[in-house]
């Protein structure tokens, strides 16, 4: 049924732009008009636009297009609904008239008049009529988040709905001894009292006790350290503090916040960021006169510590060292940073200062342990969070199954796109998290395409490592002031970069760890108001495991953050830096290990010169410049855009190992939603030359891996299997890449990759099967091992809390050293960072979780969400569980 006017006119809504402000989407084909949407009424009453409404007419058809011409003319009309004044277009009025509400308008509202009044009651009735009109769906007004939440409740794909109750603030009065000016400044900023955790942080820190405060996002954690620091400096002008943030962006943020408070206080306290962007002229001032120096570990490592004699006034008077986002210092990065802090403490003691550490961390299982390991100092844990919190809805969304036997679900990416579209077009500020840089770009371009008619593509942006700092700052600012409505990000925005309060957070797949998930969820809804968090599960085993076992997620303590500052490579590197900074005494300590061996080794290498009981740096090089804290490989690949020969420019960089699979020749590299093709990867000079292209696919590369056992350190028998821990040599070489179509994700071609082999010596845990049911053929066994490896690759990073890329799993049907079927789990960093060791210690837990996952998977006999699809028809699930059961 099609609506047609009482006057016999038929209405066809064609694509029609009325003064560029409202759009009617075209769907003339087959005389079907899908949608009319009128959104945003600009003009003088700009203020009202935010709550403007739109009509959506779906599936209305008609034969006559004649009516159309008059739409082009606009007569301004206003309607008052609920106290708000709306401007109406002729189009709307015509529509209403069409459905028989001529009485709607009072006064003259002819085509040449510029305003008229609308009878409010009649207007409401008219909508009622519109709504009831057969075959026409009309939606009035923008949907609020609350409406969407209610709609979602009935969505059949929602598998778990968890509500986090709002929490009232727990407050404490300002401590009595607090500096008057500081108190007054805070009060002027609307802070009349402290939350309980801020209060205890202050009281503990001023006593000189090291603290680690565990606080969720937006709980006012910055006051935990700013309060004691400002208090100290306000009382004693010579005092100094050092703030460490994991990224430059966070440091910038912090400085502006700090400077606002300082300005309010009216005391000349100088706080500066000190990073790669700081100009030489400012650097002088920061060194000599900065009360609070805000920097990052990399800068501390390569610019401050090796030049400590220029920072005498800082190191002599250092009272506090603040380490924010403590939980980010884990894995390789954390292991490096722990050593940087050893160097820092060494230099402090040289200058006679003994600073107090104030750390803040997101929720992890072992904040105290991590802080103690990282700083080498005893810590007091503070976790009495007193900040208020709005209601949060945490929803698990499992895409529908599209292939029953194979348990293949609809792509999470597609579902995320649709969900995000719904939020964005209702002007609800939304953040979408994706797990990889490539995924970010894919989702970004899809969403931009989906909503380009409702809102501009510019108000939806991508955010990830590899973007240049300036771009990032612009995006952060845009999110804060609401100019940017949506952002698609990697976990780069998991950290406390200030992007204001977002209403909705959508995760594309499980972020990989409980802690990380809560961090991402914290991006939606800060102190007040409702917030919605949707985790859309992908088909991977762990995602399916999580959504089907919500208790695992909601009731389990978050993961442990692990570091291994004693990784020999890392330790030796930092001992070189430390020796450069100050000579080593033979009696000196540098962490828990006995370092005399290392000192002697460095002497042998002619890096150190021994005289009496002292080792002196004696090499020409500048060791800190050779050591990067962030990546396994020291050299990054620089990405050069040569689309415009006359203006070749660098658009980003990438670490060496990632570049092997993302920047090989012919790879499609996505950057800010723009596709580039790699024309040439110059491996020797670490440069990738790219050119802008417009293609319908992205690329995905395969990596061939080989393993050799070097040394077995620990071994334990588990039933008919043996689990070992030790050192291995891993060789990697990228083999081929596939071209995958953007829209359908089907494989549309492939090509070879020619890159040299990379070798990695690291620690591994491996499982050898001594005896296997002889009825299982070699081929089947191989597939079973693949299946188990597949499951482990997903489970292990979750259990030991690391990035997916930090730990790798490789099966071998005949391991080179024993000829036995073996599965290797190894650290993806030279020398290992303690992950495989952790797996060894918790092997029962790991195999139990793997078994559980396979058993709970709803598929018949293997699917990509558990053991993969290769084993179809072989009763693979049962056999796999059997094998895993042998390990008891």
């Amino acid at each position, binding site marked *: 049924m099609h609506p047609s006017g009482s006057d016999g006119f038929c209405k066809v809504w064609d694509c029609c732009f009325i003064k560029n402000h409202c759009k009617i989407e075209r769907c003339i084909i087959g005389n079907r008009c899908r949608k009319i949407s009128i959104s945003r009424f600009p003009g003088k009453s700009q203020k009202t636009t935010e709550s403007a409404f739109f009509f959506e007419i779906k599936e209305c058809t008609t034969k006559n297009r004649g009516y159309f011409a008059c739409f082009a003319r606009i007569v301004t009309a206003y309607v008052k609904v609920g106290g708000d004044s709306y401007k109406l277009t002729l189009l709307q009025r015509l529509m209403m008239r069409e459905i028989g509400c001529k009485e709607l308008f009072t006064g003259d509202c002819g085509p040449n008049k510029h305003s008229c009044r609308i009878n409010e009651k009649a207007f409401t009735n008219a909508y009622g009529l519109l709504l009831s009109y057969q075959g026409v769906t009309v939606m009035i007004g923008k949907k609020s988040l609350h409406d969407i939440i209610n709609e979602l409740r009935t969505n059949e794909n929602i598998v778990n709905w968890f509500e986090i109750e709002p929490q009232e603030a727990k407050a404490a009065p300002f401590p009595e001894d607090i500096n008057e000016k500081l108190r007054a400044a805070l009060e002027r900023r609307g802070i009349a009292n402290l939350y309980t955790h801020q209060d205890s942080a202050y009281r503990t820190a001023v006593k000189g006790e090291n603290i680690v405060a565990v606080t969720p996002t937006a709980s006012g954690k910055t006051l935990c350290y700013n309060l004691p620091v400002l208090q100290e400096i306000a009382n004693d002008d010579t005092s100094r503090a050092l703030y460490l943030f994991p990224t430059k962006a966070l440091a910038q943020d912090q400085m502006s916040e700090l400077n606002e408070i300082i300005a309010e206080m009216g005391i000349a306290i100088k706080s500066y960021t000190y990073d790669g962007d700081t100009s030489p002229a400012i650097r002088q001032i920061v060194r000599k006169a900065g009360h609070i120096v805000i920097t990052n570990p990399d800068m501390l490592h390569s610019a401050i510590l090796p030049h400590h*004699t220029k920072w005498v006034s800082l190191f002599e008077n250092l009272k506090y060292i603040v380490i924010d986002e403590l939980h980010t210092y884990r894995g390789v990065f954390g292991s490096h940073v722990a050593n940087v802090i050893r160097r820092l403490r060494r230099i402090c003691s040289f200058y006679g200062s003994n600073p107090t550490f104030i750390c803040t961390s997101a929720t992890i299982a072992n904040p105290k342990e991590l802080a103690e390991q990282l700083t080498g100092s005893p810590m007091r844990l503070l976790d009495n969070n007193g900040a208020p919190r709005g209601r949060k809805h945490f929803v698990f969304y499992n895409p529908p199954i599209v292939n029953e036997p194979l348990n293949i679900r609809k792509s999470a990416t597609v579902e995320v796109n649709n969900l995000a579209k719904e939020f964005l077009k209702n002007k609800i500020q939304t953040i979408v998290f994706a797990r990889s840089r490539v995924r970010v770009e894919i989702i970004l371009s899809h969403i931009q395409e989906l909503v380009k008619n409702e809102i501009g593509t510019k108000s939806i942006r991508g955010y990830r490592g590899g973007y240049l700092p300036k771009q990032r700052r612009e995006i952060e600012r845009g999110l804060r002031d609401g100019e940017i409505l949506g952002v698609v990000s990697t976990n780069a925005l998991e950290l406390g970069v200030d992007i204001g309060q977002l209403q909705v957070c959508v995760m594309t797949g499980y972020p990989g760890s409980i802690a990380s998930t809560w961090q991402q969820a914290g991006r939606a809804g800060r102190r007040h108001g409702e917030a919605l968090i949707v985790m859309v599960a992908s088909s991977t085993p762990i995602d399916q495991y999580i959504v089907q076992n919500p208790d695992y997620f909601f009731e389990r303590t978050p993961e442990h953050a692990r570091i291994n500052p004693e990784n020999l490579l890392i330790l030796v590197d930092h001992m070189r830096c430390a020796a450069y900074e100050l000579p080593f005494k033979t009696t000196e300590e540098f962490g828990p290990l006995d370092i005399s061996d290392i000192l002697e080794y460095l002497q042998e290498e002619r890096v150190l010169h021994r005289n009496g009981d002292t080792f002196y740096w*004696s090499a020409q090089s500048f060791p800190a410049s050779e050591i990067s804290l962030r990546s396994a490989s020291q050299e990054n690949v620089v990405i050069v855009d040569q689309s415009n020969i006359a203006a070749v420019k660098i658009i980003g960089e990438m670490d060496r190992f990632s570049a092997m699979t993302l920047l090989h020749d012919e790879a499609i590299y996505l950057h800010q939603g723009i596709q580039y093709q790699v024309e040439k990867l110059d491996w020797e000079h670490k440069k990738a030359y790219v050119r802008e292209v417009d293609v319908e696919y992205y690329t995905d590369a395969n990596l061939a891996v080989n393993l050799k056992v070097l040394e077995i350190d620990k071994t334990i028998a588990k039933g008919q299997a043996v689990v070992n821990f030790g050192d291995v040599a891993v060789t990697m070489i990228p083999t081929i890449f596939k071209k995958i179509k953007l829209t359908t994700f089907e494989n549309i071609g492939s090509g070879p990759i020619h890159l040299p082999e990379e070798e990695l010596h690291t620690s591994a845990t491996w499982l050898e099967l001594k005896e296997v049911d002889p009825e299982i053929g070699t081929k089947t066994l191989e597939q079973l091992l693949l299946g188990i490896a597949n499951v482990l690759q997903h489970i292990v990073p979750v259990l030991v809390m690391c990035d997916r890329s930090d730990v790798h799993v490789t099966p071998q049907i005949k391991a080179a050293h024993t000829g036995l079927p073996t599965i290797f789990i190894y650290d993806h960093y030279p020398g290992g960072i303690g992950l495989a060791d952790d797996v060894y210690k918790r092997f029962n837990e790991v195999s139990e979780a793997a078994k559980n996952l396979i058993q709970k998977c709803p598929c018949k006999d293997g699917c990509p969400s558990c053991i993969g699809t290769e084993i179809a028809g072989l009763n693979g699930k049962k056999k796999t569980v059997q094998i895993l059961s042998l390990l008891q």
Partner: protein
Amino acid sequence: MSSMRERMNRLRGSQGSSAIDEQSAQSENQTVNMPEALSANAAQETEAASALESPAQDVHEAVWQRLQVAERSSKWGSFLQREVRYPLQYQHGHHLLAELAETAEHLRVFHPEETGLPAPSLENLLFLDLETTGLGAGTGNIPFMVGLGYVQNEQFVIAQYLIRHPAEERAMLADLQTRMEDFHYLVTYNGRTFDWPVLAGRFIMNGLGRAELRLKHLDFLHPSRSIWRNTLASCKLSYVEEERLGIHRVDDVPGSQAPAIYFQFLADSNPSPLEGVFVHNELDMLAMACLSIRFGRLLDNRISGEVYAPKKPEEWIRTGLWLERMGQARQAEAIFHMVMEADPKGESSLMLLAARDKKVGNWERAVLLWQKVAMTAHVEFAAVYEAFIELAMYYEHRAKQPETALTYAHGAQSAISERALLQRADAKRRAEQAALTKRIERLKRKLSR
């Protein structure tokens, strides 16, 4: 021990050669590159050592003696010192060291604000040059040799401190600190950004306090750059002395090789190769003394007719500009006048003088200079273009002769078009072109009114 090395090598795997390998490779090269005289020397000594079969130490002792190196001790410990004395009548390149006596006082203008301080003189100048184990002012960069120069008893004394190992540094620095108290001026070459910051850091590292430099610094790198930029390929001291001071070093060990030689010495205690470093440092000190004489003479208006009088107009102009900055306006003006008299052709450096004239409002000569540049062929394009633009600006805004201005603007236009044939247009060029087009249009409008 070797197990540690094994472990490290295994972990490094194929991560490529370590920094250490590179370094040792480097030092090998350097040994090969050592000046013949020195390596011959060294070879002789090693031969001698093996022939006599006496302990290496004795041989080393002999070398120290030959190098005039003696141990110095104080309550802080001991270190080595080599002392070389030159009579003031020593002629080094163009200059006689004795000239320092009459010229030093003219250096006073480097610190015009210091009225209470005695003027620089033969006795109160301390020349200083460090040889360090690395680059930059990082805390691991150790000055293993401190070269000092000063005049004592009618002799130019070069005292070179050397530490046998890093533990001796403190004693050496403490001695240096005391020694510095006897002087008022510190003469260096790039000491502002290198030698002094390194020393200040080392004083702190060795617990000798945070020292502000009490001496007034005379860093001759900056004036050298002012005068010889462009006319010399580099303003490195060794280059300046060769090209402008008439000093020719034979078999000099470049300063860049000093660290490797010192590390070798740390490893094998053989002092022979250090001779090259001592000599290099000694020559640097002499060169600095000569530079002091040169700058003193320039400031004393002793230029024309001297052997070292500039050959090129550019050097003359830059000398004049420098003198003017140093407060020697009359002298500078005389030089500018002389340059104009000589009527140099095809000199883009005239633009420097023109810019100076424009700044002080000497329009007459500025216009003359611009015209000279604009009208000469074979001058750098950029200068020609700039000259035309300056002229166009002058005639439009100052002389109020739009017609003439337009002629010059067209001149600039044709200069641009000529260049366009040779070079690709980048953003800056396009902006230039746009501005020029605008100027021409504006002038045309003015004329049509």
